[in-house]
């Protein structure tokens, strides 16, 4: 027998919460993107847990696609961050209001 699924789900919930709080309290854009990665990983852990629990390959496939989307998201996000920092060195999330009318 292996560990009950609720342990994994609890751990994933804790990690997701830490990521969400970090996203809300930090203003460094890079750390905010890292917190988004934390939340994605918590969701991945949940997917794998349910895949095991329901004996269904779909959960693991979903994690595979989440990984790909996360990679694309990081590439584009970091590109935007580099572009913002080039205009305004030392920018935080509050400084990125160029689109404001």
């Amino acid at each position, binding site marked *: 027998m292996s560990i009950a699924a609720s342990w994994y789900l609890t751990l994933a919930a804790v990690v997701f919460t830490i990521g969400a709080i970090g996203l*809300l309290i930090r203003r460094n854009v890079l750390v905010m993107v890292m917190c988004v990665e934390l939340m994605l990983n918590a969701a991945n852990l949940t997917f794998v847990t349910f895949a095991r629990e329901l004996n269904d390959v779909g959960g693991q496939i979903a994690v595979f696609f989440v990984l790909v989307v996360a990679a694309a998201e990081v590439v584009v996000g970091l590109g935007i961050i*580099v572009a913002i920092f080039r205009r305004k060195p030392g920018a935080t999330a509050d400084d990125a209001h160029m689109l404001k009318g």
Partner: protein
Amino acid sequence: MVSGLLATATIPDAITFVIAAVIVIAGALGVVFMKNPVHSALSLIMTLFGIAVLFVEENAQFLAAVQIIVYAGAIVVLFLFVIMLLGVDRNERISVENSSAQRIGAIVLGLAVLVEVLLLGTGQWVTGAHSVTGSLTGHGANVNVIGDSLFSTYLLPFEVTSALLIVAVVAAVVLARRHDGHENVEVEIGGKEAHELAASREAAVGHDADETSAEDEASLR
């Protein structure tokens, strides 16, 4: 709590889970509370390794390998590249980073999320049908099962994924490209360094680019 963990698991399983969980949570806290972004990125690697261990424990060996190769090997290295490129690898004071009202609001919201997800996670959730898109056990190793499913049932999403990656690469190149002439970075970093920058660029470009460097000089003034 310990007996609850051991009720369904063997002792090695339980020990592995506890150690991996501690590593995951410590890394996650490190990402949020480290002052230096480089340390945050290294804490993120710690979390990712812990989650890879948990994946192995849940018989998702392929995903554990991909987790380490893609996340720890590529994504975090990309983070570190950008941190070093931007030169933001210095400590920042978290205490003055935001107002206390924002922090209190964040913690309240976070705890609400935690309670909600915990209620969902530990309640009556096993209502789904089993093995709808294919069984995880039965025919071959984990990689075989995922490969079979990925290249039959999920073939179209898989191909769309490759298109997505191409779009992301093109977007990264477009976003990170330096637009000479439209940039005002040189003005912002000030006189002496700007002149050094222009001089080094002139040396790098060579003699046949006198016109562009003259334009640069003009834009600097």
